[in-house]
């Protein structure tokens, strides 16, 4: 009854890959907590943000399925990320040189 070319492509992965991603996320969480206990001085924030970014990439690519979606989704994602980045950079130009 329902047909058309806009329906789901076959992209079933089984449970295993998601459990692996979850394990990686838990591991990264323990790393970021452990690292926070060490005094890295000025590097502490970049390290924490880097780990958070890696975790985000895992969630977006696998749990949110972006890795397997049409390229237009990646373009959208990139566009929103760049927008946010531009807002941050422009604001910080103002804050730094005030």
């Amino acid at each position, binding site marked *: 009854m329902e047909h*058309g070319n806009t329906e789901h492509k076959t992209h079933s992965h089984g449970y295993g890959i998601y459990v692996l991603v979850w394990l990686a996320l838990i591991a990264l969480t323990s790393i970021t*907590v452990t690292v926070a206990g060490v005094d890295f001085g000025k590097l502490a924030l970049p390290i924490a*943000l880097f780990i*958070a970014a890696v975790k985000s990439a895992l*969630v977006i690519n696998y749990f*949110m399925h972006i890795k397997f979606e049409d390229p237009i989704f990646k373009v959208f994602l990139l566009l929103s990320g760049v927008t946010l980045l531009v807002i941050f950079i422009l604001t910080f130009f103002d804050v730094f040189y005030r």
Partner: protein
Amino acid sequence: MSQSNGAVVNHVHRDDFGAKLGMWVFLFTEVLLFGGMFLVYAVYRFQFPDLFKLAALELNTGLGTFNTIVLLTSSLTMVLAIVAIQKNKKNLSLFYLASTIGFALVFMVVKYFEWSAKFSHGIYPGSEELLNRQNGEILFFGLYFVMTGLHAFHVIIGVIIIAFLMVFVYKNKIVHDNYVKLENGGLYWHLVDLIWIFLFPLFYLIH
């Protein structure tokens, strides 16, 4: 004759691609909403680095870590609910969705105890105890309550959405070859998880 196009009558309009694209557009508005708050956080942390550290010491890192793991696990059960429905395992999918709600409720209970502890120490927005402190600390706790509060609000909305998804699965409105609603609900839930991935180190892990 005029009714010669009978084949069209059976066609149910369906556009999973469009539905998901629409969901992503909505998620971007959410990212901008929280992005604005992260921006305010960044500027004030840059201005008051030491006071932010001092104030952050009062947050319970153990509870924050526990909640992070709970939320990550709820994201896993959410995605497993989709795999289960793809494999036409309705009851398993319902079980995973119920687990997701369960983890979300655990998250909220922990949040309740965290906030209660802060309130009992006289720390809440506009409290006398808080207003007597220095600006950086007031800003830290202001951002803490607004950002984790708005996030917790999203968790509650997520629970309601997942409850509806369970009803749809139960009534066979979401089935193995038509589950875009489940995917979109999942996208929302993962976004809630994503925001927490950044909130956690920025509030709980400053030493």
